[in-house]
């Protein structure tokens, strides 16, 4: 009897019209196909007669060419009297040049379907152009006019000044922007990226100062040209020579910044009130004494990947996938002309603010002690970085941007080529040691932009000192 029931069941499973097919073969993840060779794209380099270097990365998939004239000058060269000067000067290039006013530049660009962009960050400035390859020459003409013949009209500056001042109000209102500005102030003090624009600093800028800044900083001695897309070095070099070959000007003598704000001696919560906010924006950071040229840079980079560098890192799996307190949490390592900064970032539901900070810190501590990183986590991080490499180079832009980084920060010329081997060479022990060396809980700055009335009590229970900041990151007087 028993036997026959079993038999019947087997028959039904295998043959019945409503049979569920056996899908157990699906339990085994498929093996990869034969690996395919990946060739890093190559850059070719030439030089104009004034010494200006040109790098070209070819990509003929779409009939577009991009050209970027990059400068190693930017906000870092602003003084306390000229905060914002590099940024507004670069923006003003597009407002009037040669015979063109702002509308004229816009219309001339449209006529050839070109995008012309100008701008400055803290470390560099650029004039960039992207155009259908058939219109390359007129687009280069327009780009050269914008770069070499800016007019800096007072009317245009008046309009931009109004806009910049209004933008400040936006920055002081948006929780994410507040965290960005205040974070810069905490990391850099009153210099370099810590020099924040205000209405007063904008009003102190003049069109004369912009013209002077452009003359002394936008020189071929401070520049490199990066070209990508549907052209070749041989084809574009004479076109660039005709427009930029007789441009002159030496490299600036100014020393790039090295100073940085020391870390707090004891972990401190910096709180900026955002009444009624449904979430708190959180940043936990520590300044590093290493940068990309340091011996243990890649070791620390990999440790960060395991902690919070990707979706499936510890921080996000904890705060999002386990707790549900956030839409996402990440950590990152960044560097600039000074040294690096390590930052963990998230936005969490207001009533989980203090608990989220505890979890960020617990994950840091446990990664250094009872729950050290594992070989599997390291393999995952390594696989992520190496596996996604080919598609990074699908267009010319990534390699060109890496070449610019190599130039700006004086990295080894073979940085891109050796990157994969450097990642492969990181051992678990070394990554673990780098973590312990560079992320120290007692020296964390924790920035919170959130609803003070709701969260201050639970923040106080964390036991760290709380410093209240205004929306520009300046300490407020104690009540």
């Amino acid at each position, binding site marked *: 009897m028993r036997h026959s029931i079993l038999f019947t069941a087997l028959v039904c499973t295998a043959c019945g019209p409503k049979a569920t097919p056996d899908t157990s073969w699906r339990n085994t993840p498929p093996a990869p196909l034969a690996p395919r060779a990946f060739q890093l794209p190559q850059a070719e380099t030439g030089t104009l007669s004034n010494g200006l270097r040109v790098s070209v990365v070819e990509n003929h998939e779409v009939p577009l060419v991009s050209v970027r004239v990059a400068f190693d000058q930017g906000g870092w060269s602003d003084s306390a009297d000229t905060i914002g000067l590099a940024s507004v000067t670069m923006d003003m290039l597009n407002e009037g040049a040669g015979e063109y006013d702002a509308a004229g530049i816009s219309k001339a660009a449209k006529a050839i379907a070109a995008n012309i962009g100008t701008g400055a960050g803290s470390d560099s400035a650029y004039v960039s152009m992207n155009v259908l390859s058939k219109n390359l020459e007129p687009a280069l003409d327009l780009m050269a006019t914008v770069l070499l013949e800016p007019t800096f009209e007072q009317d245009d500056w008046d309009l931009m000044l109004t806009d910049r001042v209004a933008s400040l109000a936006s920055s002081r*209102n948006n929780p994410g922007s507040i965290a960005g500005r205040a974070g810069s102030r905490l990391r850099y003090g009153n210099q370099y990226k810590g020099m924040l624009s205000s209405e007063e600093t904008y009003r102190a800028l003049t069109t004369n100062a912009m013209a002077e800044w452009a003359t002394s900083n936008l020189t071929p001695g401070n520049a490199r040209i990066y070209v990508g897309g549907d052209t070749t070095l041989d084809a574009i070099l004479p076109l660039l020579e005709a427009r930029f070959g007789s441009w002159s000007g030496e490299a600036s003598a100014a020393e790039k910044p090295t100073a940085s704000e020391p870390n707090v001696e004891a972990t401190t919560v910096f709180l900026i009130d955002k009444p009624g906010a449904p979430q708190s924006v959180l940043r936990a950071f520590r300044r590093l004494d290493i940068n990309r040229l340091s011996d243990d840079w890649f070791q620390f980079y990999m440790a960060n990947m395991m902690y919070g560098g990707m979706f499936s890192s510890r921080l996000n799996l904890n705060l999002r996938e386990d707790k549900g307190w956030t839409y996402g949490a990440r950590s990152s390592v960044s560097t600039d002309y000074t040294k690096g900064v390590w930052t963990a970032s998230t*936005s969490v539901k207001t009533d989980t603010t203090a608990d989220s900070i505890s979890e960020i810190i617990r994950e840091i501590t446990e990664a250094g002690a009872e729950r050290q990183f594992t070989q599997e986590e390291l393999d995952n991080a390594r696989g992520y970085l190496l596996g996604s490499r080919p598609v990074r180079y699908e267009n010319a832009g990534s390699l060109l941007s890496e070449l610019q980084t190599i130039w700006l920060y004086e990295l080894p010329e073979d940085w891109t080529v050796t990157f994969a081997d450097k990642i492969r060479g990181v051992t678990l022990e070394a990554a673990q040691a780098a973590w312990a060396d560079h992320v120290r809980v007692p020296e964390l700055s924790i920035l919170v932009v959130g609803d003070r009335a709701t969260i201050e009590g639970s923040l106080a229970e964390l036991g760290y000192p709380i410093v209240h900041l205004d929306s520009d990151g300046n300490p407020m007087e104690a009540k």
Partner: protein
Amino acid sequence: MLITALLGLVLGAHAESTPESPIISIPFEEYDLDNGLHVILSEDHSVPFVRVNVWYRVGAKDEVDGRSGFAHLFEHLMFQGSAHMDGEYFGPLQRIGAQINGTTNMDRTNYFEGVPSEQLPLALWLEADRMGFLLPALTQEKLDNQKLVVRNERRQSYENRPYGMAWWWLFENLFPEGHPYKIPTIGKHEDIDAANLEDVKAFFRQWYLPNNASLSIAGDFEPDEAKALVEKYFGDIPAGPQPSPVLAVDPVQLAGETVIRKDDDVPHNKVWIAWHSPALYQPGDAELDTLSSVLSSGKDSRLYRAIVEQKKLARSISAYQVSMLLSSFYVIEATASEGIDPDALVAEIDNVLADVRENGVTDDEVALAKINWEASFFRRMSTIGAKADQLNQYYIHRGETDYIGADLARFQGVTAEGVKTALDGLSNGRVILHIGPADKSTSSDLEGN
């Protein structure tokens, strides 16, 4: 970097584009499996990477009453594991270098991952597993967790961002009760919170069927190998009853002008003027995109010159067509200058529009818009990810995968007269949304907590 002929985008014979001679094409082949799954293959061997992209013909418009936000919540659950890979999907994919995500909008839901070429089997295995075998791995715990995550997404992307609720208020006032577009994709907190396991199961069984999906693979693969893999992993997923997504609704007629004023924690007065407009790909859709270029693209555009540069009534202004499958809306959005009355700003915008209604746009303006549209098309189509997604969009929304030439031709065929007609077609009925700084004495009007 091989030679051009092997690569994904191929130039047509004519350098000059005309409606008769599409200037770009994306080579592909397509077929259906026996279970109805549509398959699109587009080779591009420029880098050893391949993009897998799946579109399901279901979006927020197909949600039932009381379950707003559900299509998007469901999308989240598709990453939480399935019968034969019970665990969150990011781990196994990220460790091979995959780029992975999914998106939901009103009209459809898509999922995509880019993987190194040799990992195509893994990507197809996972996509097939969640298409065919999601429910056995579904748990209350996963649902509860993702409900919290999605509600935090709502807080982060909408509520805790200045003007972040503008879209919410626009949809709410543009569309009548019961309209499929009444509530934006993110949904209401209480509806997200109310979703239960039965809802998830029913939604999966109704919509997540091979015969309601299209699988697009673009990049570096061998077609025979890919076809065999697709058959192996997707071939035995059973088809289900053909679902009936909402594909048409009666046009909405707004009665006159609805003005909504929202006080909020924002720094400036902003206005949105919105009209109902022709649906995606319908006559008038490309004309309104062209109108947008004339009105607000660049500092030589009409609204910028009149409103920002000359009269200085606004800091910024932009006009755009929000193209959707059932019906679209057209928006002019402006940030008022300090001290400027939003009503005066709207009045001046109306003056500029009246001039276009009276005198039309010029042939030159239309010509400039066209060549810039063409260039932007190339810029958008320069990655395998964009190509895989675009092919699926053409198939799902047009029923015509090979639509790229016709899509471009829509724009090449626009005339100045057509632009004027499209503007005339924006009915007098409209919604004006004004969000400004709250009076200190009143509380915020933000929804949800």
